[in-house]
């Protein structure tokens, strides 16, 4: 029986693995299930698709278990320059995607990640006495484990129903060139990025949206990243919390000239306009993010159904420690990291949020450890 099984080998699973390893948990005590052993196998094509060159922030731009140091000292040493350190002191450092990928590869190599990965898809997780049983692969081989972290990632890309099957449609997170006339559906960060990318590629852009986007630096108020805001968040009733989470996930992108100037210039040239229809456009890019909700993930959906776990709307109800109360006790833990962990941590799908879940899991493992 392994000590910890991590279901999902994307960034959430990878961050959790690094956290456990830094605390002294050996690779042989951890099993990671994912058909693709590359922890950025899902993330990298999405970043490439939206032409992302920098991470969103310093803290949300590295997988080290500790919040300090981030990548700035590493980059400063590698480039032999002080600038990354100056930028980090001024809260202006954002690692490049290239730097981030290099860092992930380095951590992967030295942490023993590949020793722990079982390249199989998990079909089912069920609670058994004193732990869990994980059925993986077509043959359904069963892996027992005392603690399980579900790091399942986003359950697919969201495409509006009325556009399903339309041959012009491509999702923003899928590889795509730009046509001459492009309709971009959505009003969040991905949509704003696509407006600028398409304009830079010389396209005429139509922004298709149901409402005007919010302009905010981050989707979440800063206190919600720490205990200061989380205590209040955890004290809300389920309906208040669901309402708050829906409000926080409303489409938004940051304020600033970097975004406004190209759009204003393109509007003046007649190359950018806002409308509510995709009719007549050569290409339709859906910058509509991901599907939301536990029911879209087959493993989670089955687990909820089989064990009658508590849910609220599209969310799986979790404790403030990102665990499932009904299946966690003094001997075992079922924890959730990444997008499906929003009930415990609103920014669960960020690297910071993934670390939150991982650190709490680590705390439980340390407490539950038996000789």
């Amino acid at each position: 029986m392994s000590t910890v099984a991590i279901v999902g080998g994307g960034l959430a699973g990878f961050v959790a693995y690094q956290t456990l390893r830094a605390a002294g948990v050996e690779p042989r005590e951890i099993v990671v299930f994912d058909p693709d052993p590359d922890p950025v196998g899902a993330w990298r094509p999405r970043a490439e698709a939206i032409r992302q060159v920098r991470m969103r922030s310093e803290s949300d731009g590295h997988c080290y278990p500790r919040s300090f140091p981030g990548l700035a000292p590493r980059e400063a040493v590698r480039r032999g320059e002080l600038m990354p350190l100056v930028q980090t002191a001024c809260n202006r450092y954002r690692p490049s995607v290239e730097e981030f990928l290099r860092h992930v590869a380095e951590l992967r190599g030295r942490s023993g990640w590949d020793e722990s990965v079982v390249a199989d898809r998990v079909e089912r997780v069920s609670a058994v006495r004193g732990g869990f049983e994980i059925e993986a692969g077509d043959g359904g081989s069963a892996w027992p484990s005392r603690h399980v972290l579900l790091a399942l990632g986003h359950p697919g890309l969201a495409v509006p129903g009325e556009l399903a099957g339309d041959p012009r449609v491509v999702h923003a997170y899928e590889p795509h060139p730009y046509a001459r006339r492009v309709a971009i559906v959505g009003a969040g960060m991905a949509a704003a990025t696509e407006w600028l990318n398409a304009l830079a590629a010389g396209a005429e852009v139509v922004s298709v949206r149901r409402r005007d986007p919010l302009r905010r630096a981050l989707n979440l108020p800063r206190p919600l990243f720490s205990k200061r805001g989380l205590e209040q968040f955890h004290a809300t009733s389920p309906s208040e919390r669901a309402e708050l989470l829906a409000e926080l996930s409303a489409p938004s992108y940051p304020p600033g000239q970097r975004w406004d100037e190209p759009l204003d210039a393109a509007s003046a040239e007649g190359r950018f306009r806002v409308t509510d229809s995709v009719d007549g456009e050569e290409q339709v890019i859906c910058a509509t993010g991901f599907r939301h909700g536990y029911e879209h993930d087959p493993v989670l959906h089955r687990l909820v159904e089989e064990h009658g776990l508590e849910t609220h709307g599209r969310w799986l109800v979790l404790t403030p420690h990102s665990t499932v109360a009904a299946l966690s006790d003094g001997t075992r833990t079922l924890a959730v990291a990444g997008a499906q962990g929003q009930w415990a941590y609103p920014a669960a799908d960020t690297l910071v949020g993934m670390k939150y879940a991982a650190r709490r899991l680590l705390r439980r493992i340390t407490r539950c450890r038996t000789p």
Partner: protein
Amino acid sequence: MSYTLRGRIESRLAAALLPFLAACAIALGLEAWWPVELAAAMIGAGLALDVGLYHRLLPYQPAWAAIPLGLLELTATMALVRLFDIAAPLEPALWFFVASWALAQVLGHAGWPLVRLTYAEDGGELGRGGVGLVALAPTFVLLVLGTAWATRPPTVHLSAGVHQGPIVITTSQILDGEPGTIVRGGVVVRADDVTVRDLAVIGGEYGIEVDRADGVRLENVSVSDAKLDGIHARRSSLTIRNCRIDSLGNPWAQGIDISFSNDKHPSRVTGCTVVGGLEGIVTHFTMAMIDRNHVSRTTLRAISMTEMSMGEIHDNEVWDALGVGIFCNDMSMCEIEDNVVVATRPDRASGDAARAGYGVLSSFHAEVELGDNELATNPVPVGAVADAHIVDK
């Protein structure tokens, strides 16, 4: 970072622990309580701002805010220093604050996040260690401060009006005059750790005499009409701050004379105004710093370090001295920097070539390091005689 209130307090106390212990060690070394009192003022100001201001106004505190908040804390700390009359010298106090602030920044941004995985998401809280710290640290600080309070010298208040002297002080104490306090006939200090402040001395053999006493502080005192020196110190270490000495009626007296104290802690004369007399400020066989004083209308020399004295003379203003402005003599070693010496007059009546109106004069094997002095309208700006040396910095 978004601190919780508990996180702010725990992080503050944890970062202040080392500086406070360092302050205790420095206090032991100096045999003075001000380092401890300063550290306590710093902690107190920080905690008050944490509770009263930061927690309410800063739900999120970006890293760059450390600098403006640090300046605010420095202002609050110095206000407390003034309010509680803590005898901390400005420059060391500033360095202590800066070092403590820098340590707190390093710990907050790097140290605690390295030691404690959840430091940032816990809002700066330090777990069980933090709780223990909150319980014990204030007790420890209060204990040390209580000891400081209990062992501090008693304060003797002199009421406004004229008191007949001489007042002879033979035990450690603070002699504190109310506004308008005058002592006729002089003050004599013959005990260590005596502070005399806020009074005017008129007459007396010496205005204020300090004899074989260490750690003496003379603050905001004025002396006039003394028969001999305004302030006369022998075999003592003392700090004289913001004094006024009027020796205009006595061309043979010294304004301030600190002598034969080379085996003592260095003495300091700062912020004083000395008018008239033979020499304005003079040291013999003493280590001293003489800075930010105004000396004028002396009949022999304005500022003088002699007989194997050693020290700094900087940022003083000297004008209308007869013969010599600043004098370093007899194997003394003097750093003379950033002074203004103007309108020194030649003493033709003396017939002495070494009194030809020198701005700065080094004499008889003395060594002077000169730097950035403003020497205007002196017949001879700088000179060295009798095997003395002058080196430009």
